[in-house]
């Protein structure tokens, strides 16, 4: 810790001394008519929300709708994977988002909180969220994605562990009429979206949208672990299908907004996960989530800004797993069904008021989980029939205090109470220093927690999986120093050094069972709190937009995440990530060519091996307004056809799961 603090201080001094000559560029307009003649930065060249970035007590990244379109991102996984310090894992069933070296395989994204227009979308069974096609929205409906790194439990409570992702959806005015979008690619992939948005003369706005997606997936997948005549020589044939449908509607008038969203995704499982019969097309999972959210947002000069909401969510998971209870001679093939139902409702309120140099945020949140049920059964019996309900509430207070033009302090606390008696208080302190209008240094201390979810607590199928009733919250403590420098209107860089200390980490373990011998029939899965982990890392990002509409974003992330006790590297934790995004506009911005490159270091696997490091390149060409209202784009993913794999999880026989090679996509959007 001492070394870390020393490193932070040194870096800070270096950064300050390096940048100080650039800092004094201030415009002075001392007569009022200069309002008319001053040079104003063009909105066309400003791709980021600078004002938000420097004010936030953390490193915030923002991805706009334009960037999503420009780089041809297909899923939220693509979007998040483009960010410094973020990387993904895909086991050909679900995609997982991992942050700053931490990504326990099989964790259903419970350590990242996702909000859609402020509505919490993590479910109440797994605390999970979907970044693949299970994500509630079609990406085309996103206005921007704001990603806040670091623990944010002081504002958001549980799950705001490594990051908070706030997705802001488009408004009716962003569509202004009907829009149709179709795409097609290889692997038999095609999608269709129909949307309508409008802003009416009375100020009301509406967005209606429906999307459907189908993909045959890879027709042939080879896994050496199953290379046996009994398991089709390791070849999974036509068992990678995926389909997803989503609906979204938003209506707002005055201070009121009502939103509803629904998504249903069905994915076949080609990997033989959970000891299922390999290459059986009946293995699949289906996840659906829908919600309705009513928001009231009042802003007045006198009383400040108030946001209140009521919501109702429903999450349903259904999975068929084909198991063989027999042996090689007498197979006994049975379809085992796994289900989860999560229903919840709640409300939250937040009041923001500016008093002189203080910006005060006060809020409360309540969630009643009316249903948190899990079941597992097949023709031989019911192995799990667990019914739960619970509630939690939290109150929080944050003060953003500007001491003067240069110094500011953000101090926040949140207290959470769960109906099982658990209480937790999460503080966050950030000191912001603005040496000039163009630079900001932030020293941040924060803690966050994640309560064990009902899946981790109660899942028990009586044989391969045991309940973990004594689990406690896991916590994280973070120290981070962020420095942001806007060198000029076209060049900006940001650097961060951080230290994370995770205690009582909830992780899935394989217990050797009563015989205490690993890899025998009585082994079972169980969650425990036994681990602690620490991460030390650095992220650096440089953004530049050149005069000729050439845009560059380059980032390097270096970190080491290790087991606190043994000092061993954690699995699925690449120590280096290098990302480069390039884009160039042509013909008065009617054509863009965008490329993104990624280098990711090797990752340790559960078996102690290492996946190969890899280099990916993606290319997208977009033609805007080719005809009135028509936008075309063509993308090539994994342009160099790089072979790469991600570590598998406890439930996989595969130590590493190979990913897709080169893929193509054509997309057409037409605005009527």
């Amino acid at each position, binding site marked *: 810790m001492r070394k870390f603090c020393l490193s932070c201080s040194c870096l800070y001094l270096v950064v300050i001394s390096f940048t100080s000559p650039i800092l004094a560029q201030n*415009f*002075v*307009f*001392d*007569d*009022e*008519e*200069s*309002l*008319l*003649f*001053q*040079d*104003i*930065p*063009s*909105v*066309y060249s*400003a791709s980021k*929300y*600078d*004002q938000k970035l420097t004010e936030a007590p953390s490193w915030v990244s923002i991805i706009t709708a334009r960037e999503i379109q420009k780089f041809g991102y297909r899923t939220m996984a693509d979007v998040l994977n483009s960010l410094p310090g973020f990387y993904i894992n895909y086991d050909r069933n679900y995609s997982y988002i991992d942050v700053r070296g931490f990504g326990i395989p099989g964790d259903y994204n419970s350590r990242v909180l996702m909000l859609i227009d402020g509505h919490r979308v993590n479910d109440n069974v797994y605390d999970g969220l979907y970044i693949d096609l299970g994500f509630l929205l079609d990406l085309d409906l996103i*206005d921007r994605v704001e990603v806040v790194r670091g623990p944010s439990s002081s504002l958001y409570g549980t799950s705001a562990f490594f990051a908070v992702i706030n997705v802001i959806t488009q*408004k009716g*005015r*962003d569509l*202004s*009429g009907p829009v149709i979008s179709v795409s097609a690619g290889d692997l038999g992939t095609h999608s269709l979206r129909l949307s309508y948005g409008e802003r009416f*003369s009375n*100020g009301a706005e509406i967005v209606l949208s429906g999307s459907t997606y189908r993909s045959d997936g890879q027709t042939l997948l080879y896994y050496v672990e199953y290379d046996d005549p009994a398991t089709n020589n390791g070849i999974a044939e036509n068992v990678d299908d995926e389909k997803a449908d989503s609906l979204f509607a938003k209506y*707002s008038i*005055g*201070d009121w907004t009502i939103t509803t969203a629904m998504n249903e995704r069905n994915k076949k499982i080609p990997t033989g996960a959970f000891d299922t019969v390999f290459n059986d097309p009946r293995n699949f999972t289906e996840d659906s989530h829908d919600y309705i959210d009513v928001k009231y*947002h009042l*802003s007045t*000069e006198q009383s*400040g*800004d108030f946001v209140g909401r009521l919501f109702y969510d429903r999450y349903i998971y259904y999975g068929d797993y084909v198991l063989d209870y027999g042996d090689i001679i007498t197979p006994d093939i049975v379809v085992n069904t796994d289900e989860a139902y999560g229903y919840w409702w709640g409300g939250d309120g937040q009041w*923001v008021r*500016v008093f*002189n*140099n203080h*910006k005060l945020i006060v809020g409360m949140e309540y969630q009643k989980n009316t249903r948190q049920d899990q079941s597992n059964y097949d023709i031989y019996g019911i192995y799990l029939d667990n019914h739960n309900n619970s509630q939690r509430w939290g109150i929080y207070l944050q003060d953003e205090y*500007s001491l003067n033009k240069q110094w500011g302090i953000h101090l926040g606390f949140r207290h959470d109470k769960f109906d099982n008696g658990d209480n937790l208080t999460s503080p966050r302190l950030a000191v912001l220093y603005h040496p000039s*209008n163009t630079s900001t240094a932030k020293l941040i201390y924060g803690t966050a927690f994640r309560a064990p979810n009902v899946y981790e607590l109660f899942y028990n199928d009586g044989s391969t999986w045991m309940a973990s009733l004594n689990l406690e919250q896991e916590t994280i403590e973070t120290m981070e120093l962020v420095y942001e420098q806007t060198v000029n209107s076209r060049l900006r860089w940001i650097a961060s050094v951080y230290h994370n200390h995770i205690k009582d980490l909830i992780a899935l373990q394989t217990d050797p069972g009563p015989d205490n011998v690993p890899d025998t029939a009585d082994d079972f899965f169980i969650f425990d709190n036994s681990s602690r982990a620490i991460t030390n890392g650095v992220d650096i990002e440089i953004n530049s937009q050149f005069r000729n509409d050439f845009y560059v974003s380059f980032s390097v992330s270096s970190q080491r995440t290790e087991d606190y006790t043994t000092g061993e590297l954690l699995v699925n934790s690449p120590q280096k990530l290098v990302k480069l995004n390039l884009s160039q506009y042509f013909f008065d911005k009617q054509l863009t060519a965008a490329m993104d490159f990624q280098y990711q270091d090797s990752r340790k696997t559960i078996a102690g091996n290492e996946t190969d490091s890899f280099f990916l390149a993606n290319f997208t060409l977009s033609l805007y*307004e080719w005809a009135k209202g028509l936008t075309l784009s063509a993308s090539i993913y994994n342009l160099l056809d790089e072979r790469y794999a991600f570590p598998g999880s406890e439930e996989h026989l595969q130590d590493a799961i190979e990913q897709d090679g080169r893929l193509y996509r054509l997309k057409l959007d037409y605005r009527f």
Partner: protein
Amino acid sequence: MWLINRIKIDLRHLLRVVALFVLQPVIVNASDISVISSHETERYQQVISSFNDYMKQLNSEVLIEQVSFHVNESDKIWLQKELISRSDIIFSLGTQATRLVLENNVNTPVVIAMVLSEKIFSQREHVSGVILKIPVAQQLAWLKRLLPDARRIAVLYDPEENALWIEQAKREAERVNLEIVAVEIDHPSRLTMALESISRKADVLLAIPDKKVYSSKTSKTIMLTAFRNRIPLVGLSRTWVKAGALYALEANYSAVGKQCAEQAYQILQGKSQNDNRYVYPEQLDLIINLKTARHLFLDIEPELVEQASTVFR
């Protein structure tokens, strides 16, 4: 040291006066007009040039002297003693120059241009001129033409500076079936929240000259928020439109120079000056950004585009 500095200053003044004589051989005359300007940028020069040309047309005998303006004590003294006191009329451009003139001169009539505040006209007697503001009625009339579907017009303002303007605008808006959504900004920290609320409550954001709201520090935030929320922003000037505002009405600077020349000529003719009276620009330029219009999914009528003096495409 003081003596050396003194000599330097005097020498500089001497050189300047000599230079003026060399450049404009006949300076001292009963009908002298001294032109003093806060800035020497294109727009100011446009006004001065137009003023000169029109004044020459009205009376070729009038002698006009243009003075560079720098704020320091020695300049002030020189200005007062050597120039202002000898002029029949002072044509002053910009707030800084005008303040200096008004502080250092008691009786000489002053014609003012390139200022935004009405208050400057009430500082003393024998002051008149052209203010750069656009009358509310004209602003709203143009807004109705360019954005016929817009009903609710947001205006961010500092009550200390623009409370009266807001009252007037509300009356005028009511008359033409529009609504002014006035949002007070008494501290810059309130701006972000105010902009957020505007995106929900208004169809258009009309920028008005207001130092607290539209400073160099806030302009980018305002522009970006309006752009990203697809709220049409009526800018303050050409530079705002170039940066991404939908359109702006701007005084035609040549016409402003001509208006000022007319006022100065009337004074030279011996007609009594309408003290403390300002007039609005007679001729306005329309500047449109069609790129922004496309972003807002707006179709601007072709005849309006033709009328515009500048169109950013």
